[in-house]
Every structure is written in C-alpha cells, then in structure tokens.
C-alpha cells in the first residue's frame, strides 16, 4: 500500500533573536497509510500542532522548516505556494481547535463552506456549492441543514460549530484530514459526539486522519497508532494497543496515569512540573527534570528511538527493555 503521509527528520526552527534559532521540532519521523488514524499526543509546546501546520506551510512567517514530508510521494516542504494551495482544503482538510474563532464571524457558515468548494472548482456555481454545503451538513448530522447554512457562526452551539467545521474540511473529499485538538474547546458530552462522528466518517469515507490532542483518552478509541511527543521529539510511538499495554516511556506512562477512569478509586496521577520552553530545553533527554526514573545519564545524551518489541521508545531507561535500534 502506498504511504499517504510520511515525514522524515522534519525540523522547525523559529528565530530567537540575535541571529539564533530555537528548534521547536527536532527531527520527527511519522507515517500514515490511507484510511489510517494516527493520534499525535503531547502537552502544549510539544510541537504536535506546528508539525502538521508545517506540512501545509501554514506556520507564521519566519519559521524555518527542513527535512522531508511527503504526501502521496510529493514533497511538501518547499513546495511552491500555488501548488500547496491546490492541496490545502482539497486533498488535505483541516479541523481546528476553537470553531468559534476558526470561522469568520461576519460571513454565513454556508458561504464559508461553499467557498471551500468554489476555491477548488471554479466551474461550480455558488448555488450548487451551497446545495453541497447542505448535503455536507447532513453527512455530519447537523439538523435542518437548509436553514443552518444561512446562519452565522455565533448562531451555532459549540458542538454544531465543530460539526460544521468538519463538514467544511470534508467539502472536497480529502484523502487526509488533520484534526488539531478538535474536541478541546467542547463540553465532555459533545466531545464524545464529535469523536463518534469522526469514527463514523473514517469508516464511511475511508480517509486518513491525523488526530492531534493532549488527551490520550481522546485517541484511545479512535486511533490505529499513536505518536507521543515531548519537547519537539517523538518519545514513543506504536500501535494504540502497544502504547497503552506495553508502555515503555515514563512520560507515556505518566499521561496514561493522568487519564481519569470511572472504576479507578485512587487519586488521579499527575506529572509534576511544566513542559520546557523551546528557548530553554534541558540537556539530554528533555523530560529528565520531570521524570521520576531520572538518572545522571539522562542529562548526558538525547535518547534515540529504540524498538522495545512493542513500541519505539526514546528513553535511556525504558520501562520495557529495548530489543533493537530502530532502523532509520
């Protein structure tokens, strides 16, 4: 099967003043097959969102992106703006965190969805595009689509707005959908509905999905595989089952401990401390100041991803013994 998306040694740097550069993403390798769901998990500042924004060249001006990111074999990094525009919204759809600010508040939702269609197909009339927007509303289960398309974003509830955002991302039947914290701004019950919707869409449409979240619970039931990011690197990656049941990285273990469960009676675990700033990363493994298993060697060198038999893990002292170095 052809790989849908593959990044190799993807790096992102931002100017840090005095001609210096701060590395926000320090070499990330990811791959996604068509129809597959990849969950990228990490705290704020781990680099998970900017990695995906870099693929579409949507980073703020001044960012320096190196390495490789191929979409269906085509190199995205350094692609001409006119060509990347043809991919945006057409082959790759995006869903953002806060649907209220992500929609333009002074334009009707239907017009904004119709625009996504007409931008890529000039032959289609505005009316036909609006009709298509209604059909998309049905697809994402928004009631009364004919009435809804002529409403403004503030007339939608948070959950309905995110459904509309998903409808817009799906407007041109993309092969890849990037959902950046799609449920973070929503109530818990609405979160579950949106995740169900994504699950159904994935099954019905067979699109590849990159789900970016800080919440392992969100990806647990949806993702085929998971990449856990910390400090601009992947610290652990593997199938969802392996990441949950054969956890090798102390950070992943901490994240799993921080997911509330209904039957657990102990207190919720937390990872002490805060994630490092990209301007001031700790030496060696950037997780060592917060890690409860830390040893002097952790400050010495940056660990590389090693196969543990289940997951790939970047840790000097993984919770599961490594078997072999991951072939680069």
């Amino acid at each position, binding site marked *: 099967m052809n790989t849908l998306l593959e990044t190799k040694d993807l790096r992102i740097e931002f100017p840090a003043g005095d001609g210096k550069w701060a590395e926000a993403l320090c070499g990330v390798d990811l791959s996604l097959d068509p129809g597959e769901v990849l969950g990228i998990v990490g705290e704020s500042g781990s680099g998970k969102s900017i990695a995906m924004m870099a693929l579409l060249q949507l980073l*703020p001006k001044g960012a320096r992106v190196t390495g490789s990111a191929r979409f269906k074999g085509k190199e995205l990094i350094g692609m001409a703006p006119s060509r990347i525009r043809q991919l945006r919204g057409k082959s790759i759809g995006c869903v953002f965190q806060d649907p209220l600010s992500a929609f333009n508040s*002074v334009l009707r939702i239907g017009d904004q969805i119709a625009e*996504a269609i007409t931008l890529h197909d000039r032959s289609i009339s505005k009316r036909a595009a609006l009709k298509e927007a209604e059909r998309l509303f049905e697809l994402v289960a928004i009631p009364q689509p004919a009435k809804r398309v002529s409403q403004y974003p503030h007339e939608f509830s948070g959950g309905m707005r995110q459904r509309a955002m998903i409808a817009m991302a799906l407007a041109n039947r993309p092969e890849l959908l990037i959902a950046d914290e799609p449920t973070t701004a929503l109530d818990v019950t609405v979160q579950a509905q949106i995740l169900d919707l994504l699950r159904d869409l994935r099954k019905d449409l067979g699109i590849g999905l990159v789900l970016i979240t800080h919440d392992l619970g969100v990806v647990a039931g949806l993702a085929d595989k998971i990449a856990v990011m910390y400090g601009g690197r992947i610290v652990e990656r593997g199938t969802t089952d392996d990441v949950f049941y054969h956890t090798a990285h102390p950070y992943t273990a901490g994240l799993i401990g921080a997911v509330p469960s209904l039957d657990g009676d102990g207190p919720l675990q937390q990872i002490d401390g805060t994630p490092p700033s990209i301007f001031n990363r700790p030496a060696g493994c950037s997780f060592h100041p917060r890690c409860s298993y830390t040893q002097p060697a952790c400050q010495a060198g940056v660990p590389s991803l090693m196969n543990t038999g289940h997951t790939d893990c970047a840790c000097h002292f993984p919770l599961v013994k490594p078997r072999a170095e991951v072939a680069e």
Partner: protein
Amino acid sequence: MLAYILRRLISIPFLLLGVASVSFLLSQMTKGDPLAALVPERQMSNPEIVNAVKAQWGLDEPMPIRYVRYLGNLLQGDMGTSFSTRRPVALDIAERLPATLELVIAAMIIGTAMGLALGLLSARFRGTVIDSLARIFALLGSSLPVFWSGLILLYVLSVRFSIVPGTGRLPPRVDPPPDVTGFYTVDALLAGNFPLFLQALSHLALPAFVLGWAVTGIITRLVRSSLVEGLSLDYARTARAKGAPERVVLVRHALPNAMIPLLTILGFTFAYLITGAVLTEAIFSWPGIGSYAVRAAASLDYPAIGGVTIVGAVAFLLANLVTDIAYAWANPRIKVH
C-alpha cells in the same frame, strides 16, 4: 429594527433641546457685547439709538425670557435673525449647507476610496516599498495642515498649470443650476446641463481631494492595522487551510471584519467635517457652513453661532444613528432591540 430607529429618532429633539440650551447659555456668558455688531461705533454713545436697537433685537429683556423665546422660536424652525447678514439664520444655513454637504460627501468618497485602497495595498505588501509609500502618503494627508496642502495644490495645479479651475463652486459669471438638491453637480445633471456639470465637478475636485486626503490618513491607518490583525487570526488560517490565496484571505475574510471599526470612524469623521471643513472652505472660497461659522464667531453673531451649533449637533446625532444601523448590518453578532 424599525422600532429601534424610531426610538432613536424620537430621542433626537430632546438631545437638541440640551444642545440649544447649552449653546444659548454659553453665548450669554461670553464677555463680548453683541451691540458692537449691531450699532455703528459712532452711535454707541447715543442712548436712544442703543435702546432702540436693543428693543428691536429683544436684547432689553431679561435672560430667562429670551431663553424661553429662543426655544419657542426654535421649535418653529426659527433660529433667529443673523446680526450681520440681517437675514433669518435658518435661511442662511439652508443656502450654505448644501455647499458644505456636497464638499464633505465628495471628500468622504475620495478619502474612503483612497484609504481602503491604500490600506489594502499596505496590508497585502506589508514591509515592502509599496507599504512604505502608501503609509507616507497617508501620513502626509493627516499631518499636513489643509491650509498648507490646499494652498500649495491650488498654486501648482490651478495657478501654474491650470489643470483645475480656481476657487469657488463655479467659474465667475456662470449661473448655478436650478435649485433642487443644492448640490451643483447633481442639479446640473438633473437639468441636463452636462457642460455645467463638468464645470461644477472640476471646481469641486481639488477642495474635495484636499479634504479627502486628510481623511485618507486616518482611514488608511485604521484599515491597515485591522487587516494586518485579521490576517493573523484563526479565521485567516482557516481560509488559507481551505486553499484560499492571500488576496482572497485579505479581501473576502479580513476586509469585512475591518469594516466594523471603519464605520465608526466614517460616521464620526463625516459629522465632524460638516462644521470642521472651515479651513478648506476658506482657502477655496467655498460658500459653506464652515466659513459662515467663522464669520459668525468673529462678529459675536449669537443667532448664527447657535444655528451652526444646532446643525453640527444634528449632523452628529444622525451620523451616530446611521453608524449604529450600519454596524448591525456589518456585524451579524449585533442584534438590535
């Protein structure tokens, strides 16, 4: 919406009552003696003449009586008689207001069009030479005093190169078109007199540009900063993620959002210019409200001053109302009750 507009309209007379009262009281508190404008200097020592003039203009009555009479007359549309033109103030203003309105509306059109165009260019090519040039042009407009830029342009374009005609609304000895709206350009067209329309338009062009240039400065800066801010917001990223080119993000997404603050400035500027176009009117011998106000103030012509004040207040109140209505149209999040 209609009920809202009606309610606002009903409130206007009450606000005007306040404006008229304050302007009347202020004029009573000034030290200057209006008799100086009414009685020739040599007759000032003649009590008979002075008393006759006082009686004629009602100046012999106590202040509260005059106040009540003034308000009563105002209600009937009588703003009193000008001390200096000896004509009803309402008539003077009715004659001069269209000239000012024509100038101000033309200036607002020019200023808004240039301001929007420069603001868009500036935001689209921010950080480049185009951005700098647009901002310098805008900055010059808002910082060069009109009496300087107006005079220089008048000298260069009219006196030296005869590209535009000189001052006034029409060439000397040309009769104005039959009065319908009071706007010479519009009336000339209504009369089907196209050559006269061109003459009126060419006379209007330079003063309107000079006044509009000053407006351009404010609008360019506002539009540019709103657009640049908009381009960094989430909705702009969404538009880019849909595949919109930067031009579309700017015009279709950031511009409608920039209209909201712009409307406030436009309404306010328009109202301000009704009485604030004084310098432009003076330089271009434009027979409008501004020059009337200056002469009234210089000659302590209280009825005229009061009349101009009320016109200015009405302009502000109406501009505010129109701005609020336009706001609801530009920003769907605003609901009018």
